Each structure stands twice: as structure tokens, then as C-alpha cells.
């Protein structure tokens, strides 16, 4: 089987005058993915995700380290020989040619038998739902159609790995949503190892079965979407994933009858979950993280914290309560059709398993004893 393995991979760009610029665009990246995986490489701009993809494709020289498919190191193999299909965000189709000839282009260049070309083009066109467009010129197509043709062209050569670089970011909302669904189905059908590069966390969560999240060239966490979402290893991952974003608030630990509480900057107290008791000490400082959906409305008999509503918004699909904590907001998302007034008092419970602590200095996750270690 053809696992893809990136080992101690580094990339440093030239400054243009033959000198290196001194910054690693990719810094000691190690990843091994099984054949058939759908990997999402996720991160903000400048995190090294596209550089990584380009090194796998052979479009970028590797500064240090190895890329292997199965047992074969491909560092020195010509891009054409790597059997990799590539689809970029900006399509790069040949405008004067028909859809058919765009898809067939590479096979023709490689002098594949005409009959076989026809078979393969029609088969992949069916998969990508562009059969009816085969005779059309590329110019007249919509963005979504162009991206379908683009992916079809990448797939027609039966690549071992399909690389997708921000394939949806040029498309508008509705089209993006449809094609996202199509790509998901496509992967199930052809089971080709696929690597998707994106800055959109929703895209990575919804498509990939494994996610590598990067920042400034360094891998932060590798795991399933569930691990990345529910068990972030540091504050960067916690903050980057999720919409609306996780509440991240500086807290001071305070002893309180028999247990501990977290003191927010404005003096509000939140009962500390029992699971943390063994590691907490009076006066410690942390950043507390909890998602807006992990806070639930309770009553005055049993609650972890009480707040005053500053802003209430009914957005139809969900309702958002915002609590002002000095310059920040603490956000609570509720699904029930309830209405709250500004200034009213609310009692809430925090979902214990989904309350996180992070080191104030390093941003690393602080784990209670015996907790699973994600990533």
C-alpha cells in the first residue's frame, strides 16, 4: 500500500540573491498518512500549508528531509513521474479548448490510445457531473463548473494522490456548499488519498478524516476532526477551530468552600470542575477555554456561574447571549427558543468535559491527571 510519509521536512526560501532568508516556511514537519486518507492541512496564511503541498507535488525544492510514497523516496523524482493530481484554486484551464480537450490534454500529450482517452474522459466527467459540458468552451462556465473540470483533469490520470489547494475559496456560498458535498462523495467513490489545503476550518472539519493544523511552519496538532475540535492541544488550535470561536478568558484560581473557583478579570466567579481539583492551587493563573455551545442555561438552585446579559441576539437558527467581561465578551449559544433582556440575570452550568485550561505563558493545554492525550 502507498502510505505517504513526510519525514523531518524543512523548507527555506531563497531571498532571490542566492541567499536563504533565514526563516523556515516549513519547520521539521513529520506526518504519515495511510493510503485512502482524506487529509486536511489547515492554518492561517503563512503557516506553510501550500508550501508543504507544493513540495509533495514536486513544484518546490525540498530544503531538508524526505517525502516518501510507500517505500520510495520521491525527493528527486520529476513531478510528472510522481503520479500526483493537482487542482489549484484558480483552475488554470486552457480557455480556448473545450471541456473535453481540457480533461484529455495530458493523456493526449502522453500519447495514450485514443479510445482509452475517450473512455477515461467520459468516466471521470460522469463522476464530476460535467458530462453535459464536454463540448462547451471553458470560458462560459461558472466558477463551480470550472472547478469540477479542474478536478476531473487532475483525476483522469489515475493519480496515487490528489492534491487540492483551496479548491472552494473562489466560489460563492451556495456553490461552495454544493461542491463541498460533491468532493466528499467523490472521495468515498474513488478512495484516492487526498490532501486538501485550506484556511477555512469549516471546510477541513467537514471534508477531512484527518487534520494537520499548522502555524508559522510548525505542525500544531494532527488528529481526527473530533480530536481537533474537542481536545485541542494548545490555545492556537482551540481559537482557530470553531464558529463562533471558543471563549478564552484569563482566570485566577481561588479557594472556595471545599473546592476551587476561577475568578474572571471583572471578579465574576465560575465554579471549577472537580476534575481539576488535584492540579489547582490558590492564586494560579490560567486561560480558561469553553465553547459557546458548552455553556447551558440552568437555575438558581444548581449553577456554576451567574452573569448579567449585556447583549441578546436572536439570529433565527440560534440565539446568542453575550456577557461583558471588561473589554471582552463571553458568548453563550442557545438552541431553545428563549428570549432574554439586556440586564437580566442568568444562571449557567458549564459542560465539565468541555472546559479547558491553558498555560498563560506558553498557551499549551494544562491537563488534569489521567486525561486522554490527543494528537
Amino acid at each position, binding site marked *: 500500500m502507498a502510505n505517504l510519509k513526510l519525514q523531518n521536512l524543512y523548507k527555506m526560501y531563497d531571498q532571490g540573491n542566492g541567499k536563504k532568508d533565514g526563516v523556515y516556511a516549513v519547520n521539521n514537519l513529520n506526518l504519515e498518512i495511510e493510503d485512502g486518507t482524506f487529509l486536511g492541512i489547515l492554518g492561517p496564511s503563512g503557516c506553510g500549508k501550500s508550501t508543504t503541498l507544493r513540495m509533495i507535488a514536486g513544484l518546490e525544492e525540498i530544503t531538508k528531509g524526505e517525502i516518501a510514497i510507500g517505500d520510495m523516496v520521491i525527493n528527486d523524482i520529476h513531478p510528472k513521474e510522481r503520479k500526483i493530481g493537482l487542482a489549484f484554486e484558480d483552475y488554470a484551464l486552457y480557455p480556448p479548448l473545450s471541456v473535453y480537450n481540457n480533461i484529455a490534454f495530458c493523456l493526449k500529450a502522453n500519447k495514450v490510445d485514443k479510445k482509452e482517452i475517450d473512455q477515461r474522459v467520459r468516466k471521470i466527467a460522469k463522476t464530476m457531473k460535467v458530462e453535459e459540458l464536454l463540448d462547451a468552451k471553458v470560458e462560459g462556465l461558472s466558477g463551480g463548473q470550472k472547478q469540477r473540470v479542474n478536478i476531473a483533469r487532475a483525476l483522469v490520470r489515475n493519480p496515487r494522490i490528489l492534491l487540492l489547494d483551496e479548491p472552494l475559496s473562489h466560489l460563492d456560498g*451556495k456553490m461552495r456548499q454544493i461542491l*463541498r*458535498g*460533491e468532493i*466528499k*462523495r467523490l472521495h*468515498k467513490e474513488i478512495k484516492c488519498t487526498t490532501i486538501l489545503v485550506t484556511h477555512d476550518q*469549516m471546510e477541513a*472539519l*467537514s*471534508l477531512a478524516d484527518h487534520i494537520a493544523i499548522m502555524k508559522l511552519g510548525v505542525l500544531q496538532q494532527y488528529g481526527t*476532526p*473530533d480530536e481537533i*475540535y*474537542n481536545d485541542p492541544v494548545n490555545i492556537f488550535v482551540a481559537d482557530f*477551530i*470553531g*464558529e*463562533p*470561536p471558543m471563549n478564552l478568558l484569563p482566570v485566577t484560581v481561588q479557594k472556595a468552600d471545599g473546592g476551587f473557583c476561577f475568578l474572571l478579570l471583572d471578579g465574576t466567579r465560575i465554579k471549577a470542575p472537580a476534575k481539576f481539583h488535584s492540579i489547582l492551587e490558590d492564586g494560579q493563573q490560567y486561560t480558561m477555554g469553553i*465553547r459557546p*455551545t458548552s455553556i447551558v*442555561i440552568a437555575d438558581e438552585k444548581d449553577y456554576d456561574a451567574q452573569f448579567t446579559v*449585556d*447583549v441578546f*441576539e*436572536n*439570529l*433565527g*437558527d440560534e*440565539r*446568542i447571549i*453575550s456577557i*461583558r467581561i471588561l*473589554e471582552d*465578551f463571553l458568548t453563550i449559544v*442557545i*438552541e*431553545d*427558543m*428563549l*428570549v*432574554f*433582556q*439586556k440586564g*437580566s440575570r*442568568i444562571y449557567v452550568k458549564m459542560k465539565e468535559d468541555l472546559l479547558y485550561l491553558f498555560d498563560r505563558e506558553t498557551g499549551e493545554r494544562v491537563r488534569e491527571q489521567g486525561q486522554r492525550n490527543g494528537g
Partner: protein
Amino acid sequence: MARIRLDHVTKKYGSITALKDVSIDVKDNEFYVIFGPAGAGKTSVLNLIAGISDPEEGDILFDDAYMNYVEPRERDVAMVFENYALYPHKTVYENIASSMRTKKYRQPEEVVDREVKRVAAMMNISELLERKPTQASNGQRQRIALGRALVRNPNVFLMDEPLAHLDAKLRNSMRKELKSMQEAFHTTTIYVTHDYTEAMSLGDRIAVIHEGSICQVGTGNEVYYLPETEFVAKLFGDCEINILKGCVTEEKGRTGIRLPYGEEVYPVPDDVGERLQCAGVKDVDIGFRGWAIDYSREPRKGYVRGKIYTHEPLGNKVELTVSLGDDMIRFIVHVDERFEIDEAIYLHFNMDKGIFFHSETKEYLVRHNEEVMRGGGKNG
């Protein structure tokens, strides 16, 4: 502050009609949102109010004063721009004071001082007065810009997509900052956006505009829960509303709906049944929002069989697209379950949660519990 009216206004740019017979009536002190897709005519409305352009037909009124052809600077309108346009070299105090130190609006310095301090307290930026805007956070900068516009007490505040250039995270928190300050405004505000969450969050009322015409004016709850047309229904909500074809049936005095997915007759609540009977319609379109569809993994009475086309896990929820008959039904599941492509799934359509439209005109007919929906739910 003032009541602002456009009365049967038409605006043309060459051969293109930007606004067709538009009438709006913005109450004194109201926060009024103009919402619509790109190119709908939103900014044209603002330009007419500001006096940047004049209408071919119709009147513009501030309270009862006729404003057509009145110079922009005579209208006493305050614009808040996307980038706030603060003076970086002046202190926050000087920035706010600047609008009272212009030739036209010059005030005695003791008035300036009093007003700057009043507005700063209101905007919660009193501690920043001696600092430069660059030393302020994004939220604070927005408040400084609003403070500067507010200090003059203009007839109307105009805001053209003030949050559009921000990334999603910042946009969310800025929207809340704005909402949090709203009560302190005491100024008529007209706010243009293409983002439905901003419209629903901020607007006392929302005017939905499309291709130069107003489609509906109403509160956030009204446009979301009681949309006057299918078009408006589709503009609100993250997951686009599903529109199903239904056939009205009557058996033993009970009104029901048959959907094209089987023989099942779904009973409708009495208030809906009555209205459908009164209207005498045979065919209806029924809108179900993404959270209004029930499902089961096992066959169940009253549930119809579909097949999962795609499933998209998004952290704490899953968006499912299910193929059912000739339709694709898209909805949200708030559970931690795993789904497989092409797996069978069973859907139920609870007519209590549907919005009924006329199948030809696509206009609103009825929904269950109209008055409760208008209020947005129970008090928490």
C-alpha cells in the same frame, strides 16, 4: 434626530434603474437596517438620504421638511465609514472634538469639553481620551468613531457596511459592540448590510431590498419566522430553507398535507388548516428551516425513507444533505453521531414547524402560532 422618509422614490443611473418606486418610513430614533444582496440598491438609498445623489422621482423628507436638492452639508447627516477614518496623530479627545471644531458646527470650547466627556462616558472610553487611536483596541476604535459622529447629534446616522471588511471573528465581536451601545445612541440610524446576522441582530426593523424594490419591512423575527415571500425566506438563515411541494387534502373535516414522497398525510394544526381552507388553495409550497426537520436512523411510522447524500461534521453539529424523491433536503443535526454516505435515513415533516406559501405566487400564506413566532419565543 429625525424621522426619515423616502416617498415613491425612483433613482436612475443612465439607462439603469437603481431604485423603483421605493418608500421607506424610518421612525425617529429607530435603528433601521437596509438588507439585500450585492447590487440590490442599498447604497443608492443611503446616497439619496445623504444628498450625494438626487432622485428622478419621489420625495425625500426629514421630519416634514422636503430635502430633495438640499446640499449634503445642509442636511446634518453623519456617515460612519468602514475604516472609521480616525486621525492617527490626534488624541482620542481631539478626534471626538474634531466634529465640533469645524467651521459649520463650531461650538464654544466649554461645550466641546462637556460633550466629549459625556460621549466618552457613554461609549465607555473615558480612560482613553489622552491616548492615540493606534493605542486603542479595534472595539475601542469603533466606539471612538461612533462617538465622534454622535457628539454632533445629527439628524441621522448613516452606516454603509461598517463591518464588512473585518474577518469573521472580529465581525462577530464588533456586531455585539454595536448592539451593546445601541441604546445610548438616541439618534435615527440607517444601517446597510448584506449579512443577515447583522440585520437580525441590530435592526429594530429591516427593509429587505432586491433589484431596486423593497420586498418586506419587518422586525428580525418577522422576516425570519414570517417571511412574506419564499425569496425573503431564502435570504435568512445559515442553512437555506428547504421548500417542499405539498398537496392540501381534507378528510372528515381535518386538513392535511400530502408530500410527493409517499401516501402519508401529515395533519396540520387548526390555525393553519383554517387559513388554507379560507384561501382555497390546492397546492402549497412548504418551507422547513434546517433545524425544523426530524429524523430517525430506523424506519418509523410517519417517517419517509431517504438516502444520505453527504454529511458534513462541523464540530458540535452535522449538516446532512438527504436525497428524498427528486429533492435534496438539507438540515442540521445537533448530536455527536456518525453518518455514512448513501446510508438510509428517515425524515419526518412536522407541519407545526412549516411555513406555507402559495405555490404560484410564492407568497406567504400561514404558519402555526404566528403571534408567538413574531415575538421570537418565550421569555427565558
